[in-house]
């Protein structure tokens, strides 16, 4: 039996400016909340796919877009956390990764796409998404309470091995409960 191998990419959308129609609150928002702000809920997977395909076609031509087209799909999209999981064929996932690096705007708003996890199975990517969402919520709570949050942004930007230690400190135990990822 021939196995079709894929790679699953967990991608964050990071914005650098406040949302355009936000309420007029002149108080400066912390960096953590600014970078990880939610996307408007009318963002659809087809928009992201269209943008990625256009970028791959521009960077890698007909050959590249034919290579990735077989199994390019948005498996999960969460506008609230500005995160999505992308499935790509294993042999050509670097083309999509490069295209994500070159993309600089989403529906007119400037942003960057940051690939934070690549895995061969959907389950591990889901676990990572849950873990990062939990860390983000806890860090945001600390920020709003006004605790010294110099480390909050670092928590989300650091690599895995250090994050494991931080996870124990922040209070999460482990993946004992499988929270469902279906939000829509």
């Amino acid at each position, binding site marked *: 039996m021939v196995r079709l191998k894929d790679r699953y990419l967990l991608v964050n959308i990071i914005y650098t400016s406040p949302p355009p129609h936000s309420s007029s609150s002149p108080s400066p928002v912390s960096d953590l909340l600014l970078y990880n702000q939610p996307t408007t809920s009318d963002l659809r997977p087809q928009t992201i796919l269209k943008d990625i395909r256009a970028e*791959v*076609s*521009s*960077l*890698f*031509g*007909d*050959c*590249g877009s034919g290579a990735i087209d077989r199994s390019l799909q948005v498996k999960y999209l969460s506008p609230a956390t500005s995160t999505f999981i992308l499935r790509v064929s294993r042999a050509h996932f670097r083309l999509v990764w490069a295209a994500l690096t070159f993309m600089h705007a989403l529906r007119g708003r400037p942003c960057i796409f940051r690939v934070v996890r690549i895995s061969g199975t959907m389950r591990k990517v889901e676990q990572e998404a849950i873990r990062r969402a939990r860390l983000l919520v806890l860090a945001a709570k600390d920020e709003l309470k006004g605790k010294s949050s110099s480390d909050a942004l670092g928590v989300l930007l650091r690599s895995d091995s250090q994050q494991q230690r931080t996870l124990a400190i922040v209070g999460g135990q482990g993946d004992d409960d499988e929270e469902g990822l279906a939000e829509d």
Partner: protein
Amino acid sequence: MTEAMDLDPHPRSSLPKTKKSLPLTTLTLPPSTFSYAHLTLLSPSTVQLDPLQLKSYLTSALSQFLGQTGTAIPIDILSVSSSSAWVRLPRPDLAAFSAAIAAFPGISSGRERIVLKVEAAGDYLGALISRSKDGDDIWGP
């Protein structure tokens, strides 16, 4: 009489055995950095090829098939004649380049179509030239 027959008139001590032939020196050809391609222009009317025209055709072919990374392939134009050209490019890109030229639909002006064809491609320029019609007299009559 048996002794006489046993005696060898020319007793030979053990002959020195001939050694197996040992190589004097060994040389391994490293993979070459560049590859070479011989391109031909196919067009119904007499269209002269010059270096700028060739560069524009190559850019168009590569950008269509390979996008911006295709146009970033550094191609050196070695020689251009009226209907053929020799180019040099990095060795890892030869496969993609040949595929791009083969997939190139050509430039069509009106009802005519100008197409490029890869006559020969390889790592060693001398071998390619001697195989072509231009190289008949390189290795002797």
